[in-house]
């Protein structure tokens, strides 16, 4: 866990309201693991007040990347930062996905919905280098919501795209596409990040097939390092259900640990 007050923005890409920033931060890059996140201070002014959490999208040598969509004031101001400006960041924070040698020669599926694709690129980098065969399901509302398609393709990762409106790939939810292809792919493990409803469905499907699965949860965070107790979700640990800090114990949890929130009637 490092505070880097001057992570230089060395590259920036943009597709409509999606942004990809590359930040030079050697200390954080050297420690970063897939599934971990950083907290970014958007402004030195009192608004936005708190830092914002972003999954680490990739790391390469001394750089890390973050991928985000404009969803509010914080991300909107962040999107206006330019190459050559620097950001005050904390990281790497939290616990990431389980990766490693045990996945060698295994088929691994990762499912990303919308901006939830963010941590899955770093994950696939790591899994590929440990010899796994990685398949990515990438779902969005429409064709324009799949901006990272080419990036995955360039790396030679097999992609399964879906759009809710059918403007590209499978027409429908990514979870339905995943269900339809599951038997054929027969993965050893599934990772997912995206809207809660999507992750719930992936949890259900993988449970029925008895495939291990991990999920990266999202929450509003006050600090990102365990001090505020603001980001809690209900997690099962040692047979007990507890409000657990996502920033410290997560953001990645296994299916068995997560107590999904009930759908509101």
């Amino acid at each position, binding site marked *: *866990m490092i*505070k880097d007050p001057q992570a230089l923005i060395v590259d920036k890409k943009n597709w409509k309201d999606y942004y990809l920033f590359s930040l030079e931060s050697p200390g954080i890059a050297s420690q970063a693991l897939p599934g971990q996140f950083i907290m970014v*201070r958007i402004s030195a002014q*009192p*608004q*936005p*007040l*708190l*830092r914002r959490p972003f999954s680490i999208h990739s790391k390469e040598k001394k750089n890390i990347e973050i991928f985000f969509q404009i969803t509010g004031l914080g991300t909107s101001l962040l999107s206006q930062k330019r190459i050559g400006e620097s950001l*005050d960041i*904390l990281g790497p924070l939290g616990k990431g996905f389980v990766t490693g040698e045990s996945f060698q020669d295994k088929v691994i599926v990762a499912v990303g919905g919308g901006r939830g694709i963010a941590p899955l690129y770093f994950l696939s980098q790591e899994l590929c280098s440990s010899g796994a065969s990685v398949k990515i399901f990438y779902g969005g509302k429409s064709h324009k919501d799949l901006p990272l398609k080419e990036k995955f393709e360039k790396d030679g990762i097999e992609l399964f795209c879906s759009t809710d409106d059918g403007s590209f790939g499978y027409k429908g939810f990514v979870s339905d596409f995943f269900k339809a292809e599951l038997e054929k792919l027969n993965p050893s493990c599934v990772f997912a990040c995206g809207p809660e409803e999507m992750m719930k469905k992936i949890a259900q499907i993988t449970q029925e097939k008895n495939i291990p699965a991990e999920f990266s949860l999202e*929450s*509003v*965070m*006050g*600090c990102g*390092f*365990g*001090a*505020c*107790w*603001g*980001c*809690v*979700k209900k997690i099962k640990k040692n047979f007990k259900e*507890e*409000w657990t800090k996502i920033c410290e114990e997560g953001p990645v949890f296994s299916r068995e640990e997560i107590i999904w929130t009930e759908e509101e009637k």
Partner: protein
Amino acid sequence: MTDLSVDLGFIKLKNPVLAASGTFGYGLEFSPFIDLNKLGGFVVKGLYFSPRPGNLPPRLVETPGGLINAIGLPGVGVERFSEEILPELRKYNTAIIVNVCGESNEEYASVVERLNKEEGISAYELNISCPNVKKDGLCPALSPKDTFSVVSLVKKSSSRPVITKLSPNVTDIVEIALSAQEAGTDALSLVNTFLAMAVDIETKKPILANTFGGLSGPAIKPLVLRMVYQVVSHVKIPVIGIGGISSGKDALEYLITGAKAVEVGTANFIDPETTVKIIEELKTYCQKKGIDKIETIIGTLKV
């Protein structure tokens, strides 16, 4: 060499900068970022007798210049704190203040009685002002009578100095401050968070699961400065200022107004180095102004 130490009468702090309860975890969360030994002290997260889960999420919402929280005082309870956390905190050379909570006056007293047996605590901060644990933000600090009864009971039980943390959600904070003073509190800390809420216009629901929460951050500083000013001119005991402090300048405003020390809260989330930076900024200010002892600027407000 500037002397940053301040004497609260019952305790001498190496500098007037403390970290506020609820924003500093149990202290150890900040050790990767700062040298805790540099602080005047820190107030650990509120402790009830037993472990508590806290409120349902969402627990946080940001507003312009502010943060509304309804965390609801989750915690490990006094036993685990004493056995597992306090031994780690004792290694630091700084004032450790324990924020004490209770659902009843008796619970406050029993937390204090348990902690009396432990070494390495400088004082207790009595949290009679959390707006997030009872319906409608009810807490003892809203009434002079309730304040008096809990403070006097805890003072009887305590072997250590007691700081009483007041609520801003009252018509006349001076009245409550005088009540706590009469009950024997050794100092006052002003203030806990302001009862607040935020609304989601899409769902037409309150954003916080608890409906209400407590507002903190830069937005509240002018309100609290006014309260500190009112209280210091009526009480004889030391006052600690808390509210929207994120720079040396903010801290100085409180000291000049008459606070003997300050607690830094929400700013710890934004920059975990804030407390240490403030101490540096206070030093720089004193050197620039030729001030040898920071104590000499306390209460120098010209009105």
